[in-house]
C-alpha cells in the first residue's frame, strides 16, 4: 500500500468514521447488467459520490430512490447500506 499523496510505502492508514454524506458527481442507469443476479433489479441507478470529508474519495453505489429520482450534478446524498448477505454490506445511497 502506497500513500497516493506522499508515495510513502508504509503510510500507516487508519480507519476514520465519516458522516456518510456526500455529493453526486455522476450517475448511470443500468437497463442491462453484464453480471449475474441483477436482472430482477433493473433498472438500477448507480451513483458516483464524493464524500464530504475528502472529495477525491469516491464511492459508487446503488441509489435506492429508483430510476425516477430527480438527479442533478451536486445533489446531496446520504449513505444507506445494502445487506447482501449476513456478513456482507455494500454502500448504497439515498437522496438527502
Amino acid at each position: 500500500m502506497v500513500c497516493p499523496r506522499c508515495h510513502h510505502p508504509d503510510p500507516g492508514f487508519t480507519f476514520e468514521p465519516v458522516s456518510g454524506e456526500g455529493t453526486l458527481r455522476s450517475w448511470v442507469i443500468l437497463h442491462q447488467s453484464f453480471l449475474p443476479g441483477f436482472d430482477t433489479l433493473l433498472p438500477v441507478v448507480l451513483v458516483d459520490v464524493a464524500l464530504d470529508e475528502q472529495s477525491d474519495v469516491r464511492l459508487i453505489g446503488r441509489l435506492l430512490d429508483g430510476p425516477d429520482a430527480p438527479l442533478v450534478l451536486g445533489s446531496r446524498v446520504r449513505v444507506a447500506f445494502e445487506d447482501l448477505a449476513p456478513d456482507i454490506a455494500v454502500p448504497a445511497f439515498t437522496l438527502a
Partner: protein
Amino acid sequence: MSSPFLARNRVAVVGYAHTDVVKHADRSLGILALETAKQAIADAGLRTDQIDGFTSSALFPSAGNHAVEDGISTVSSAWLAQHLGVNPRFASGFQGHGQLPGSVALAVNAIASGGADYVLVHRALHNPPGSYHGNPMQHAVGAMQWTVPQGYFGPLAMIGLTYNEYLQRFGASPDAMATVLVEARKNGARIPWSYWHDRPLARQDYLDSPVLVEPIRRLDCDIPVDGVAAFVLTSAERARDLPHRPVYISGYASGSPTRPRSPLHWPLDDLYETGAETARRLWEAAGVGPGDIDLPQLYDGFSPFVYLWLEVLGFCPVGEAHLFVQNGGIDSDSPTGLPVLSGGGALGNGRMHGVPQMLECYLQLSNRAGQRQREGASIALACHSSPHLGGAVVYSTTAFS
C-alpha cells in the same frame, strides 16, 4: 525542459495489409494474422527474413471470462514472429492503454535507435462466441471488490459515468450523438473491408437504438469483430528505396498516470486534465499544433470519445464538442468540416482498437485511398482509447524537422 524528440520524421510507414472485418472469421485469428503480416511485408516490397522487429499489443479487451489464448483470442508479437519463422532482434508488446499508438511508439524507438531495421506493427482483434462483456462471476477480487457487488462493472458503465457527467455539466442533448454515429457509418459504408460496408445509419436508427447503460445506447459502442491489420515501419532513409510513398511519423504521446482511481472510474476532469498533458506532449514531440492537422482521426470505440478528443486536442473549446458536431463540424464531405471519422472509425468499421484511425492516416497520406482519396492532406493524427490513458500519433507526408 525535456529533450527534443530526436526521432521526428525519421521513421516511416511503408506498407500495410488488412483483413475484412467480420463478426466471426472462418479461420483462427493466428492464421489471419500470419497471412496479413505476410501481405504487409510483401506490400512494403520486403521479404519476411528482412523483418527484424515486431511490436503490438496483445490485449483482449473483453470484461467477460473468455479464455485468453495466444493465436486464438489474441496474437502477440512473439507468437507472430515464431510462426513466421523469423528470429527478430526486437519483439515487444505495449502494455498501456492506447495500444496501437503505443505499439507504433515502440517501433519508432527501435528503428530510430538502430535496434531494428524493419518492424512489423500489428493488431489482431477477436470476437469470442457468446456475450462479449457478460461475466458469470460469483466473487469479485482486487479492485473489482469495491464496485462489482453494487453492480458497477464493465466498460459501458465506465464510459456511461463519464458521458453523463459531460451531458449534465454542459447541458448537452444525448440525441446530438446521432450526428457522430451517422458520420461514422456514412464513411464506414464506403469502405469495402468494413463490417458496416454498404450499411449507412439513419439518424432515427440511432435514436431507436436500445439504451443499455443510460446514457449509453447500443449504437454508442463499436461492434465486436474478428480482424487483423499489419503495418511495416522502417527508417526514412530505407523508405526511399521501397515502392510506396513513405508516411513519416512526426511524434507520439501516450497517456500518463492520473490520480489514484479504480480502473473503471473515469471522472470527466481526469480526462480533461491528464488529456491536456497528453496533447501538450504530442504537439511538442511532433512540432505541430491542432491548426496544422488536416486529417485528425479521432478514436470512437465509444462515441463520447469523439467529443472528448475534439476538445482535448483543441479542435473546439471544452464543453462545446456537442455543438461543434451538430453544426456540421465533423462532416467529412463538407469543405469546412474536420474529417475526424473519414476512415469510418471503430463505429463505422468494428472494434479494431485504433486501426481504422491509423489506417486512414496511412492510406490518405500515402495516396493509396483509392476512390476515397482526399485532396491536400499532408499532416494527420490518429488517436486511440481515452485522452487521459490512451495515446496519439502524428503522421506527415514530408519529413520536416
